[in-house]
């Protein structure tokens, strides 16, 4: 479980995160939603230790990463998997080398064991016979799946995803969403997903945090959203005609 308490983060004197507190539960998909510029990515980067908040604490199973030494943070990061918005695959490595990379850096497995693990993870994300292709030779959806395979190769306790289905067609986006949900349940990970995709919110939102202008504006589940009284949330979630219709019908 990850708990954030009273997080404040500013850039050049401008407060981006304003006293946010939330807890991300283990074994469920925790979604952070909000408009572009609302502070979702900054919050995610604080969770990853890439930004240090001015105030507040971020507890990973009780360990505060804000005050943690760099060595301890490095140790903790070995238990973290991250899927970046663009995949962030290493261009100079092929698919197999990308997924193999964390194992080469941190595991004591033999080469055969490592390759078995890589093939297992690639198979788990429904990718086969692509091992020797380079990131520039595969589609956006495949890149995301490789990024997920790389993120889970070390069996992480925590999985972070920054807009995992942005730029994907609706069919592939749903595949990625379902894959993330399955992996979360299967490995009992604490999964945090930043998104502004309403399909994702409705499909896989076990717990949802809605941020508006750097403040926590609402929290709940995907089933709570329809009846939520928060006007900002309603405006955000039901901004499209399609979702407005779904809402009306559900009433």
């Amino acid at each position: 479980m990850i708990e954030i308490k009273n997080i404040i983060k500013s850039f050049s004197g401008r407060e981006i995160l304003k006293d946010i507190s939330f807890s991300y539960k283990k074994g469920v998909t925790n979604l952070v939603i909000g408009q572009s510029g609302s502070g979702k990515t900054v919050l995610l980067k604080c969770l990853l230790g890439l930004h240090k908040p001015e105030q507040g604490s971020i507890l990973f199973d009780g360990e505060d990463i804000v005050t943690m030494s760099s060595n301890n943070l490095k140790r903790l990061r070995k238990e973290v998997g991250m899927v970046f918005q663009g995949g962030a695959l290493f261009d100079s490595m092929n698919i197999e080398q990308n997924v193999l990379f964390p194992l080469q850096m941190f595991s004591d497995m033999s080469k055969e064991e490592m390759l078995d693990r890589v093939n297992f993870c690639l198979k788990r994300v429904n990718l086969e016979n692509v091992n020797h292709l380079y990131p520039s030779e595969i589609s956006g959806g495949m890149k995301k799946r490789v990024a997920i395979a790389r993120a889970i190769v070390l069996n992480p306790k925590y999985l972070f995803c920054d807009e995992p289905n942005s730029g994907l067609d609706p069919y592939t986006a749903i595949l990625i969403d379902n894959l993330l949900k399955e992996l979360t349940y299967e490995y009992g990970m604490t999964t945090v997903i930043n998104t502004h995709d309403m399909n994702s919110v409705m499909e896989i939102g076990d717990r949802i945090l809605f941020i508006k202008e750097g403040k926590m504006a609402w929290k709940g589940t995907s089933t709570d959203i329809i009846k939520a009284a928060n006007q900002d949330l309603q405006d955000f979630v039901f901004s499209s005609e399609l979702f407005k219709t779904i809402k009306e019908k559900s009433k």
Partner: protein
Amino acid sequence: MGLIASFGKYLLFVGDVFRKPERRSVMYRLVVKEISELGLKSVAFVIFVSLFVGAVVTLQTASNMAGSWMPRYLIGYATRDAVILEFSPTIISLLLAGKIGSNIASGIGTMRVTEQIDALEVMGINPVTYLVRPKIFALMFFNPLLISMSMFVGVFGGLLAGVFSGECTAAEFITGIQYDFIPFKAVYALVKTVLFAFIIASVSSFHGFFTEGGALEVGKSSTKAVVFSSVVIIVSNYLLTQLLLG
């Protein structure tokens, strides 16, 4: 103030390079890869440039000596000194600052703007140690070899130009390159190449590493890397010459 702050940032960055790497075996492999990428791929370029500039140095020296009482073997002597002391270590390093420096800065800059460096950091890998250290070590190891080769090829180019233009005979030129040879000058030149290799790799990596934005900024970082590396090479060339030969 901005320049001083940048210099401080650069020193901290360089300090990070010398931190303990995650895995020595991985680091060794990366250094070998960088020698191939940055060093071996520059060999043909260095040979081509050195051959012609050595030839031009000889022709210019011969032209300046035309009609004088000076012995013709001095053409070889002057070419040797010009090539070993300045042309090969400094001019070739400046050209490499352009070729290798822009390669390094754009490569690391692209990794920064596509979040590949963030990915390394999130995995618990020090990106400076992992990305920059192998480049610095590879260049510091390979640049002296590259420059030594450039010296040889430059002098050989001079010999060819001298002989084919009829300005001197091969025997005269060879007498010249053996005349009054002071081995310390070659040591001085090689010390310069090691320092210049460090400057090219570290300054270019620094500019690439702190790129912010997108493709346009990667291009700007690449340009800055070449300009700053060249300026630092020129200034340190003067300081080192004053220190070792002054």
